[in-house]
Protein backbone atom coordinates (compact mmCIF):
# COMPACT_ATOMS: atom_id res chain seq x y z
CA UNK A 1 0.00 0.00 0.00
CA UNK A 2 2.89 2.31 0.71
CA UNK A 3 5.08 1.75 -2.35
CA UNK A 4 2.88 3.82 -4.65
CA UNK A 5 1.69 6.26 -2.06
CA UNK A 6 0.05 9.07 -4.01
CA UNK A 7 0.52 12.56 -2.65
CA UNK A 8 -1.10 13.87 -5.80
CA UNK A 9 -4.41 12.24 -4.98
CA UNK A 10 -4.23 13.58 -1.46
CA UNK A 11 -3.76 16.99 -3.04
CA UNK A 12 -6.90 16.45 -5.09
CA UNK A 13 -8.88 15.66 -1.97
CA UNK A 14 -7.34 18.46 0.07
CA UNK A 15 -10.35 20.79 -0.26
CA UNK A 16 -12.51 17.98 1.11
CA UNK A 17 -10.11 17.45 4.01
CA UNK A 18 -10.14 21.18 4.60
CA UNK A 19 -13.93 21.25 4.84
CA UNK A 20 -13.81 18.22 7.13
CA UNK A 21 -11.23 19.89 9.34
CA UNK A 22 -13.35 23.02 9.62
CA UNK A 23 -16.41 20.95 10.51
CA UNK A 24 -14.48 18.94 13.08
CA UNK A 25 -13.09 22.06 14.72
CA UNK A 26 -16.43 23.84 14.72
CA UNK A 27 -18.20 20.72 15.97
CA UNK A 28 -15.65 20.26 18.75
CA UNK A 29 -15.75 23.87 19.85
CA UNK A 30 -19.53 23.92 20.13
CA UNK A 31 -19.63 20.49 21.77
CA UNK A 32 -16.96 21.40 24.26
CA UNK A 33 -18.79 24.55 25.23
CA UNK A 34 -21.87 22.38 25.71
CA UNK A 35 -19.85 19.86 27.69
CA UNK A 36 -18.63 22.60 30.03
CA UNK A 37 -22.19 23.71 30.58
CA UNK A 38 -23.47 20.20 31.19
CA UNK A 39 -20.48 19.40 33.37
CA UNK A 40 -20.81 22.45 35.58
CA UNK A 41 -24.53 21.91 36.11
CA UNK A 42 -23.95 18.22 36.89
CA UNK A 43 -21.13 19.07 39.23
CA UNK A 44 -23.18 21.71 41.01
CA UNK A 45 -25.90 19.12 41.55
CA UNK A 46 -23.38 16.51 42.61
CA UNK A 47 -21.97 18.76 45.31
CA UNK A 48 -25.35 19.50 46.88
CA UNK A 49 -26.07 18.08 50.26
CA UNK A 50 -29.61 17.06 49.40
CA UNK A 51 -29.69 13.49 48.16
CA UNK A 52 -32.58 13.89 45.70
CA UNK A 53 -30.50 16.42 43.80
CA UNK A 54 -27.24 14.53 44.06
CA UNK A 55 -28.36 11.02 43.24
CA UNK A 56 -29.65 11.64 39.71
CA UNK A 57 -26.53 13.56 38.77
CA UNK A 58 -24.37 10.75 40.07
CA UNK A 59 -26.41 8.12 38.25
CA UNK A 60 -26.20 10.08 35.02
CA UNK A 61 -22.43 10.40 35.30
CA UNK A 62 -22.03 6.70 36.00
CA UNK A 63 -24.25 5.57 33.15
CA UNK A 64 -22.56 7.83 30.64
CA UNK A 65 -19.13 6.74 31.76
CA UNK A 66 -19.91 3.04 31.61
CA UNK A 67 -21.49 2.91 28.15
CA UNK A 68 -19.88 3.59 24.78
CA UNK A 69 -20.48 6.86 22.98
CA UNK A 70 -21.71 4.85 19.99
CA UNK A 71 -24.64 3.54 21.99
CA UNK A 72 -25.44 6.98 23.32
CA UNK A 73 -25.29 8.45 19.83
CA UNK A 74 -27.53 5.73 18.48
CA UNK A 75 -30.05 6.42 21.18
CA UNK A 76 -30.16 10.11 20.56
CA UNK A 77 -30.30 9.78 16.79
CA UNK A 78 -32.88 7.05 16.52
CA UNK A 79 -34.51 7.37 19.93
CA UNK A 80 -35.46 11.04 19.89
CA UNK A 81 -37.60 10.70 16.72
CA UNK A 82 -39.68 8.12 18.56
CA UNK A 83 -40.54 10.95 20.92
CA UNK A 84 -41.37 13.13 17.95
CA UNK A 85 -38.18 15.17 18.11
CA UNK A 86 -36.33 15.32 14.82
CA UNK A 87 -33.14 17.34 14.90
CA UNK A 88 -30.51 17.93 12.22
CA UNK A 89 -27.57 15.51 12.37
CA UNK A 90 -25.15 18.22 13.35
CA UNK A 91 -27.29 19.14 16.33
CA UNK A 92 -27.71 15.54 17.41
CA UNK A 93 -23.97 15.05 17.11
CA UNK A 94 -23.20 18.11 19.19
CA UNK A 95 -25.79 17.05 21.72
CA UNK A 96 -24.35 13.56 22.02
CA UNK A 97 -20.80 14.80 22.40
CA UNK A 98 -21.81 17.45 24.93
CA UNK A 99 -23.86 15.06 27.02
CA UNK A 100 -21.08 12.48 26.91
CA UNK A 101 -18.15 14.77 27.63
CA UNK A 102 -20.20 16.66 30.19
CA UNK A 103 -20.10 13.66 32.49
CA UNK A 104 -16.31 13.63 32.38
CA UNK A 105 -16.10 17.40 32.77
CA UNK A 106 -18.30 17.14 35.86
CA UNK A 107 -15.83 14.76 37.46
CA UNK A 108 -12.88 16.97 36.56
CA UNK A 109 -14.50 20.09 37.98
CA UNK A 110 -15.50 18.24 41.12
CA UNK A 111 -11.94 17.05 41.67
CA UNK A 112 -10.74 20.61 41.11
CA UNK A 113 -13.11 22.05 43.68
CA UNK A 114 -12.29 19.38 46.23
CA UNK A 115 -8.58 20.05 45.76
CA UNK A 116 -8.90 23.54 47.26
CA UNK A 117 -7.34 23.45 50.73
CA UNK A 118 -9.83 23.41 53.55
CA UNK A 119 -8.24 26.52 55.08
CA UNK A 120 -9.30 28.62 52.09
CA UNK A 121 -12.92 27.71 52.62
CA UNK A 122 -12.67 28.34 56.34
CA UNK A 123 -11.07 31.73 55.82
CA UNK A 124 -13.95 32.68 53.55
CA UNK A 125 -16.54 31.38 56.01
CA UNK A 126 -14.89 33.23 58.85
CA UNK A 127 -15.08 36.52 57.00
CA UNK A 128 -18.83 36.15 56.69
CA UNK A 129 -19.18 35.14 53.05
CA UNK A 130 -22.27 33.26 51.96
CA UNK A 131 -22.03 29.92 50.14
CA UNK A 132 -22.37 31.60 46.77
CA UNK A 133 -19.82 34.28 47.56
CA UNK A 134 -17.32 31.66 48.72
CA UNK A 135 -17.83 29.71 45.52
CA UNK A 136 -17.61 32.70 43.25
CA UNK A 137 -14.83 34.67 44.91
CA UNK A 138 -12.61 32.05 46.51
CA UNK A 139 -13.18 28.46 45.39
CA UNK A 140 -13.98 28.61 41.69
CA UNK A 141 -11.15 30.97 40.70
CA UNK A 142 -8.68 28.64 42.37
CA UNK A 143 -10.33 25.47 41.11
CA UNK A 144 -10.24 26.90 37.61
CA UNK A 145 -6.47 26.80 37.66
CA UNK A 146 -6.34 23.17 38.69
CA UNK A 147 -8.91 22.02 36.17
CA UNK A 148 -7.44 23.60 33.04
CA UNK A 149 -4.96 20.80 32.20
CA UNK A 150 -7.39 17.88 32.64
CA UNK A 151 -10.07 19.83 30.79
CA UNK A 152 -7.76 20.22 27.83
CA UNK A 153 -7.07 16.47 27.89
CA UNK A 154 -10.80 15.95 27.80
CA UNK A 155 -11.00 18.33 24.85
CA UNK A 156 -8.48 16.15 23.02
CA UNK A 157 -10.63 13.11 23.71
CA UNK A 158 -13.67 14.96 22.45
CA UNK A 159 -11.99 15.96 19.19
CA UNK A 160 -11.14 12.35 18.49
CA UNK A 161 -14.57 11.11 19.57
CA UNK A 162 -16.19 13.45 17.10
CA UNK A 163 -15.02 11.07 14.37
CA UNK A 164 -17.90 8.81 15.33
CA UNK A 165 -20.34 11.35 13.92
CA UNK A 166 -19.47 10.22 10.41
CA UNK A 167 -21.81 7.37 11.29
CA UNK A 168 -24.80 9.70 11.18
CA UNK A 169 -23.70 11.55 8.06
CA UNK A 170 -21.94 14.53 9.58
CA UNK A 171 -19.23 15.39 7.07
CA UNK A 172 -16.25 15.78 9.39
CA UNK A 173 -12.57 15.02 9.01
CA UNK A 174 -12.60 11.24 9.27
CA UNK A 175 -15.22 11.02 6.57
CA UNK A 176 -12.98 12.79 4.09
CA UNK A 177 -10.43 10.04 4.60
CA UNK A 178 -13.05 7.37 4.22
CA UNK A 179 -14.20 8.87 0.95
CA UNK A 180 -10.69 8.87 -0.42
CA UNK A 181 -10.31 5.28 0.70
CA UNK A 182 -13.48 4.01 -0.89
CA UNK A 183 -13.68 6.13 -4.06
CA UNK A 184 -10.08 5.64 -5.08
CA UNK A 185 -9.23 2.56 -3.06
CA UNK A 186 -6.40 4.44 -1.38
CA UNK A 187 -6.81 3.61 2.28
CA UNK A 188 -3.25 4.41 3.29
CA UNK A 189 -3.48 7.87 1.77
CA UNK A 190 -6.89 8.49 3.29
CA UNK A 191 -6.27 7.38 6.82
CA UNK A 192 -2.74 8.66 7.21
CA UNK A 193 -3.85 12.09 6.06
CA UNK A 194 -6.67 12.01 8.57
CA UNK A 195 -4.22 11.04 11.29
CA UNK A 196 -1.93 13.89 10.34
CA UNK A 197 -4.75 16.39 10.67
CA UNK A 198 -5.81 15.04 14.06
CA UNK A 199 -2.21 15.18 15.21
CA UNK A 200 -2.14 18.82 14.14
CA UNK A 201 -5.22 19.54 16.25
CA UNK A 202 -3.66 17.64 19.14
CA UNK A 203 -0.51 19.72 19.09
CA UNK A 204 -2.57 22.90 18.88
CA UNK A 205 -4.48 21.91 22.02
CA UNK A 206 -1.29 20.89 23.74
CA UNK A 207 0.19 24.24 22.89
CA UNK A 208 -2.82 25.94 24.40
CA UNK A 209 -2.42 23.79 27.51
CA UNK A 210 1.23 24.71 27.86
CA UNK A 211 0.50 28.39 27.33
CA UNK A 212 -2.34 28.43 29.81
CA UNK A 213 -0.18 26.55 32.29
CA UNK A 214 2.51 29.20 32.02
CA UNK A 215 -0.06 31.96 32.13
CA UNK A 216 -1.65 30.52 35.26
CA UNK A 217 1.75 29.96 36.81
CA UNK A 218 1.31 26.25 37.42
CA UNK A 219 4.34 24.83 39.12
CA UNK A 220 6.56 22.43 37.23
CA UNK A 221 7.08 18.79 38.04
CA UNK A 222 8.78 17.70 41.19
CA UNK A 223 9.57 14.60 43.24
CA UNK A 224 11.47 12.54 40.70
CA UNK A 225 13.70 9.82 42.03
Amino acid at each position, binding site marked *: *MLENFSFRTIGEYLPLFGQGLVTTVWLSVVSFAGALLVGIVLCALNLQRSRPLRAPAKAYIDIIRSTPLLVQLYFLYFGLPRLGI*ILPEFVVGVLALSLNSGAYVAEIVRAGILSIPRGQVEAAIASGMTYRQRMRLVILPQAFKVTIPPLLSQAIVLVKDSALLS*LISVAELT*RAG*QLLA*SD*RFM*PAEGFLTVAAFYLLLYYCLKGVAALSGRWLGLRPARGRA
Partner: protein
Amino acid sequence: LDDIVKRGELRVAVQTQGPPFSLIDSKGERTGSSVELAKLMAQEMGVKINFLDFDWDGLIPALLSGKADLLVADMTPTLARAMKVAFTNPYMYTGSTVFTKGDGKFKTADDCKAPGTKIAVLLGATGEKEAKKAFPEADIKSYKGGGPLLLDAVNNGQADCGVNDVSAVKGQSTAYPAGTFTIMPDLLSKEPLAFATRYDEPDLLIWMNLFLDQVTIDGRLEQNLNYWVNSEDWKKDH
Protein backbone atom coordinates in the same frame (compact mmCIF):
# COMPACT_ATOMS: atom_id res chain seq x y z
CA LEU B 1 -2.76 -19.06 -7.30
CA ASP B 2 0.18 -21.26 -6.63
CA ASP B 3 0.49 -19.74 -3.20
CA ILE B 4 -3.12 -20.51 -2.43
CA VAL B 5 -2.75 -24.10 -3.41
CA LYS B 6 0.49 -24.41 -1.52
CA ARG B 7 -1.13 -22.84 1.49
CA GLY B 8 -4.19 -25.03 1.03
CA GLU B 9 -6.36 -22.12 2.00
CA LEU B 10 -8.25 -19.39 0.18
CA ARG B 11 -8.46 -16.18 2.17
CA VAL B 12 -11.53 -14.15 1.33
CA ALA B 13 -12.40 -10.70 2.63
CA VAL B 14 -16.10 -10.19 3.09
CA GLN B 15 -18.18 -7.37 4.45
CA THR B 16 -20.16 -8.01 7.56
CA GLN B 17 -23.06 -5.71 7.00
CA GLY B 18 -24.54 -6.71 3.70
CA PRO B 19 -27.40 -9.14 3.49
CA PRO B 20 -28.27 -10.84 1.32
CA PHE B 21 -24.69 -11.04 0.02
CA SER B 22 -23.02 -11.61 3.30
CA LEU B 23 -24.53 -12.05 6.73
CA ILE B 24 -24.32 -13.94 9.97
CA ASP B 25 -27.24 -16.30 10.28
CA SER B 26 -29.16 -17.00 13.41
CA LYS B 27 -26.72 -19.75 14.31
CA GLY B 28 -23.80 -17.33 14.14
CA GLU B 29 -22.54 -18.85 10.86
CA ARG B 30 -21.34 -16.68 8.01
CA THR B 31 -23.39 -17.11 4.88
CA GLY B 32 -25.01 -15.20 2.02
CA SER B 33 -24.91 -15.12 -1.73
CA SER B 34 -21.29 -13.99 -2.16
CA VAL B 35 -20.14 -16.13 0.70
CA GLU B 36 -21.64 -19.24 -0.81
CA LEU B 37 -20.05 -18.44 -4.16
CA ALA B 38 -16.69 -18.06 -2.50
CA LYS B 39 -17.15 -21.39 -0.79
CA LEU B 40 -17.85 -22.90 -4.19
CA MET B 41 -14.66 -21.38 -5.50
CA ALA B 42 -12.61 -22.89 -2.73
CA GLN B 43 -14.25 -26.21 -3.32
CA GLU B 44 -13.35 -26.07 -7.01
CA MET B 45 -9.78 -25.18 -6.10
CA GLY B 46 -9.71 -27.98 -3.67
CA VAL B 47 -8.59 -25.83 -0.78
CA LYS B 48 -10.04 -24.76 2.51
CA ILE B 49 -11.67 -21.38 2.85
CA ASN B 50 -10.93 -18.73 5.42
CA PHE B 51 -13.24 -15.77 5.75
CA LEU B 52 -11.92 -12.49 7.02
CA ASP B 53 -14.77 -10.18 7.76
CA PHE B 54 -14.28 -6.46 7.85
CA ASP B 55 -16.20 -3.26 7.98
CA TRP B 56 -16.31 -1.39 4.71
CA ASP B 57 -13.25 0.62 5.89
CA GLY B 58 -11.20 -2.52 6.31
CA LEU B 59 -12.09 -4.36 3.10
CA ILE B 60 -9.82 -2.57 0.69
CA PRO B 61 -6.74 -2.42 2.90
CA ALA B 62 -7.19 -6.13 3.53
CA LEU B 63 -6.94 -6.89 -0.16
CA LEU B 64 -4.21 -4.37 -0.91
CA SER B 65 -2.03 -5.48 1.98
CA GLY B 66 -2.27 -9.10 0.94
CA LYS B 67 -4.15 -10.20 4.03
CA ALA B 68 -6.80 -11.51 1.70
CA ASP B 69 -6.50 -13.15 -1.74
CA LEU B 70 -9.79 -11.85 -2.97
CA LEU B 71 -12.56 -9.56 -2.05
CA VAL B 72 -16.10 -10.82 -2.23
CA ALA B 73 -18.70 -8.18 -1.60
CA ASP B 74 -21.44 -6.33 -3.38
CA MET B 75 -18.94 -4.02 -4.95
CA THR B 76 -19.34 -2.06 -8.17
CA PRO B 77 -16.26 -2.06 -10.39
CA THR B 78 -15.84 1.67 -11.09
CA LEU B 79 -12.99 2.77 -13.29
CA ALA B 80 -11.43 4.76 -10.46
CA ARG B 81 -11.40 1.72 -8.23
CA ALA B 82 -10.08 -0.45 -11.00
CA MET B 83 -6.95 1.66 -10.99
CA LYS B 84 -6.08 -0.03 -7.76
CA VAL B 85 -7.58 -3.51 -7.82
CA ALA B 86 -8.39 -6.04 -10.50
CA PHE B 87 -12.09 -6.73 -10.90
CA THR B 88 -13.52 -9.91 -12.41
CA ASN B 89 -16.19 -9.85 -15.05
CA PRO B 90 -19.51 -8.89 -13.53
CA TYR B 91 -21.41 -11.87 -12.20
CA MET B 92 -24.71 -10.09 -11.85
CA TYR B 93 -26.38 -6.78 -12.50
CA THR B 94 -28.27 -4.81 -10.01
CA GLY B 95 -29.10 -1.17 -9.59
CA SER B 96 -29.82 1.49 -7.11
CA THR B 97 -33.39 1.98 -6.16
CA VAL B 98 -35.31 4.60 -4.29
CA PHE B 99 -37.41 3.68 -1.30
CA THR B 100 -39.56 5.72 1.03
CA LYS B 101 -41.81 5.17 3.94
CA GLY B 102 -44.90 3.18 3.10
CA ASP B 103 -47.35 5.94 3.94
CA GLY B 104 -45.05 8.74 2.80
CA LYS B 105 -45.92 11.57 0.45
CA PHE B 106 -43.38 10.48 -2.16
CA LYS B 107 -44.97 8.24 -4.71
CA THR B 108 -42.46 8.11 -7.54
CA ALA B 109 -38.76 8.58 -7.82
CA ASP B 110 -39.36 11.90 -9.54
CA ASP B 111 -40.98 13.30 -6.41
CA CYS B 112 -37.60 13.14 -4.78
CA LYS B 113 -36.24 15.66 -7.22
CA ALA B 114 -37.86 18.45 -5.20
CA PRO B 115 -35.17 20.74 -3.79
CA GLY B 116 -34.25 20.01 -0.19
CA THR B 117 -35.52 16.46 -0.14
CA LYS B 118 -33.44 14.53 2.37
CA ILE B 119 -32.02 11.40 0.82
CA ALA B 120 -30.16 8.78 2.80
CA VAL B 121 -27.32 6.92 1.11
CA LEU B 122 -24.34 4.84 2.22
CA LEU B 123 -21.00 6.58 2.33
CA GLY B 124 -18.82 5.57 -0.58
CA ALA B 125 -21.40 3.25 -2.09
CA THR B 126 -22.49 3.63 -5.71
CA GLY B 127 -25.92 4.66 -4.47
CA GLU B 128 -24.32 7.85 -3.24
CA LYS B 129 -23.12 8.82 -6.72
CA GLU B 130 -26.36 7.80 -8.39
CA ALA B 131 -28.40 9.81 -5.94
CA LYS B 132 -26.24 12.88 -6.50
CA LYS B 133 -26.65 12.51 -10.23
CA ALA B 134 -30.38 11.81 -10.19
CA PHE B 135 -31.37 14.33 -7.53
CA PRO B 136 -29.00 17.26 -7.86
CA GLU B 137 -31.21 19.54 -5.81
CA ALA B 138 -31.69 17.13 -2.94
CA ASP B 139 -29.95 17.10 0.40
CA ILE B 140 -27.85 13.96 0.34
CA LYS B 141 -26.94 12.42 3.70
CA SER B 142 -24.31 9.70 3.65
CA TYR B 143 -24.37 7.27 6.52
CA LYS B 144 -21.85 4.72 7.60
CA GLY B 145 -22.67 1.40 9.13
CA GLY B 146 -24.63 -0.53 6.53
CA GLY B 147 -27.99 -0.73 4.80
CA PRO B 148 -30.18 -1.26 7.87
CA LEU B 149 -29.11 2.14 9.13
CA LEU B 150 -30.65 3.71 5.98
CA LEU B 151 -33.91 1.93 6.56
CA ASP B 152 -33.93 3.13 10.15
CA ALA B 153 -33.16 6.69 9.06
CA VAL B 154 -36.07 6.69 6.63
CA ASN B 155 -38.38 4.91 9.03
CA ASN B 156 -37.59 7.39 11.79
CA GLY B 157 -38.01 10.39 9.55
CA GLN B 158 -34.42 11.61 9.47
CA ALA B 159 -34.55 11.21 5.71
CA ASP B 160 -37.43 11.35 3.26
CA CYS B 161 -36.18 8.55 1.13
CA GLY B 162 -33.19 6.33 0.69
CA VAL B 163 -31.12 5.16 -2.23
CA ASN B 164 -29.34 1.85 -2.11
CA ASP B 165 -28.75 -1.30 -4.01
CA VAL B 166 -32.07 -2.86 -4.89
CA SER B 167 -31.32 -6.33 -3.66
CA ALA B 168 -29.95 -5.00 -0.43
CA VAL B 169 -33.05 -2.93 0.15
CA LYS B 170 -35.32 -5.84 -0.67
CA GLY B 171 -33.35 -8.18 1.51
CA GLN B 172 -33.23 -5.92 4.50
CA SER B 173 -36.68 -4.39 4.45
CA THR B 174 -38.38 -7.73 4.98
CA ALA B 175 -37.26 -7.62 8.61
CA TYR B 176 -39.73 -4.80 9.09
CA PRO B 177 -43.49 -5.26 9.17
CA ALA B 178 -44.97 -5.45 5.68
CA GLY B 179 -45.80 -2.03 4.22
CA THR B 180 -43.26 -0.11 6.20
CA PHE B 181 -41.47 0.88 3.03
CA THR B 182 -42.44 1.54 -0.54
CA ILE B 183 -39.75 0.49 -2.99
CA MET B 184 -39.92 2.32 -6.30
CA PRO B 185 -40.09 -0.09 -9.19
CA ASP B 186 -37.76 1.82 -11.51
CA LEU B 187 -34.02 1.58 -10.99
CA LEU B 188 -31.83 4.68 -11.09
CA SER B 189 -29.16 2.77 -12.90
CA LYS B 190 -27.98 -0.61 -13.93
CA GLU B 191 -24.84 -1.63 -12.16
CA PRO B 192 -22.61 -4.60 -12.41
CA LEU B 193 -21.27 -6.38 -9.33
CA ALA B 194 -17.90 -8.06 -9.40
CA PHE B 195 -15.31 -9.74 -7.25
CA ALA B 196 -11.86 -8.27 -6.92
CA THR B 197 -8.28 -9.36 -6.54
CA ARG B 198 -4.90 -7.73 -6.96
CA TYR B 199 -3.22 -6.98 -10.27
CA ASP B 200 -0.15 -8.90 -9.16
CA GLU B 201 -2.25 -12.08 -9.20
CA PRO B 202 -3.24 -12.25 -12.88
CA ASP B 203 -3.55 -16.03 -12.77
CA LEU B 204 -6.09 -15.83 -9.96
CA LEU B 205 -8.06 -13.22 -11.91
CA ILE B 206 -8.13 -15.46 -15.00
CA TRP B 207 -9.16 -18.41 -12.90
CA MET B 208 -11.98 -16.47 -11.24
CA ASN B 209 -13.34 -15.27 -14.55
CA LEU B 210 -13.29 -18.82 -15.79
CA PHE B 211 -15.05 -19.91 -12.62
CA LEU B 212 -17.79 -17.34 -13.18
CA ASP B 213 -18.23 -18.55 -16.79
CA GLN B 214 -18.49 -22.12 -15.59
CA VAL B 215 -21.07 -21.53 -12.90
CA THR B 216 -23.07 -19.38 -15.26
CA ILE B 217 -23.14 -22.18 -17.79
CA ASP B 218 -23.97 -24.95 -15.38
CA GLY B 219 -26.64 -22.85 -13.63
CA ARG B 220 -25.13 -22.87 -10.22
CA LEU B 221 -24.82 -19.08 -10.30
CA GLU B 222 -28.45 -18.65 -11.26
CA GLN B 223 -29.48 -21.06 -8.57
CA ASN B 224 -27.50 -19.10 -6.03
CA LEU B 225 -28.89 -15.77 -7.11
CA ASN B 226 -32.44 -17.03 -7.25
CA TYR B 227 -32.20 -18.32 -3.76
CA TRP B 228 -30.47 -15.35 -2.19
CA VAL B 229 -31.12 -12.29 -4.28
CA ASN B 230 -34.18 -12.61 -6.41
CA SER B 231 -36.35 -14.15 -3.76
CA GLU B 232 -36.62 -14.30 -0.06
CA ASP B 233 -36.31 -18.02 0.20
CA TRP B 234 -33.20 -17.73 2.38
CA LYS B 235 -35.12 -16.01 5.15
CA LYS B 236 -36.89 -19.22 5.92
CA ASP B 237 -33.69 -21.15 6.37
CA HIS B 238 -31.54 -18.66 8.21
